[in-house]
């Protein structure tokens, strides 16, 4: 394992920034999930699929950010 180009205090700052973005995205997913559940229980069959796609996009964004964070160690 080779040493990262950032020292730990720098990496912590980057991790904190990424963490804030990930928190916002996860809260967005929470809202999306509750809104979709509410629509589904109300008999709506149109909302779930676009909401599902939006949630997958959020997950991919989170995965990308986490992948970048993991790469800080390398």
């Amino acid at each position: 394992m080779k040493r990262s180009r950032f020292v730990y205090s720098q990496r912590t700052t980057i991790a904190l920034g990424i963490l804030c973005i990930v928190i916002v995205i996860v809260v967005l997913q929470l809202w999306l999930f509750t809104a979709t559940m509410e629509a589904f229980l109300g008999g709506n069959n149109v909302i779930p699929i676009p909401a599902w796609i939006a949630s997958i996009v959020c997950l991919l964004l989170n995965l990308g950010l986490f992948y970048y964070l993991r790469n800080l160690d390398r």
Partner: protein
Amino acid sequence: MSADPEQVTVPPDGRPLEEQPVWRQEFPIDWPQSEYVSRREFTRLLLVTSFAFVVGQTYIVASSLLRQRKSALPIAEIATTRELPIYGVKLFMYPAAKDPCVLVHLSNGEYVAFGQKCTHLSCPVIPQPEKGILQCPCHEGVFDVTTGSVVSGPPNRPLPRITLDIRDGRIYATGVEGGAL
């Protein structure tokens, strides 16, 4: 390779951190490294949460598609017009034996039927046709007896409506509108 200035603690074998076993890198002693690892691991936890939301959304989509593919609901005789005077009420099960519904004879002569489970927390609603409402006694939810829409209280969705067909003095339930029972 020069020593890392932030690595205060020297491992027992004296080698740099990059050459240490994974467990020593993942459970650090020094503050700068520990703070970084804790933030990274919290981000990983949020990633799992994000994945869990996608699983939940997938379940909703699957349930929605299944609901769309279900064949038409059965037609069931639920009462006769003679049974119910004005403001008369009858409980029945539709479409399955576990789905309680309520049939109401309104003052204008029309019949309406709704699922009896409150859309807040599934308590049974009690029809009060004289007052024009269906009331949920658990949390004081009130629905309009004509339309099933919410009048007051915590529910935010209307009661699912049972479609009716009246032929030869017999009342048939033919389907459900506005949500699952």
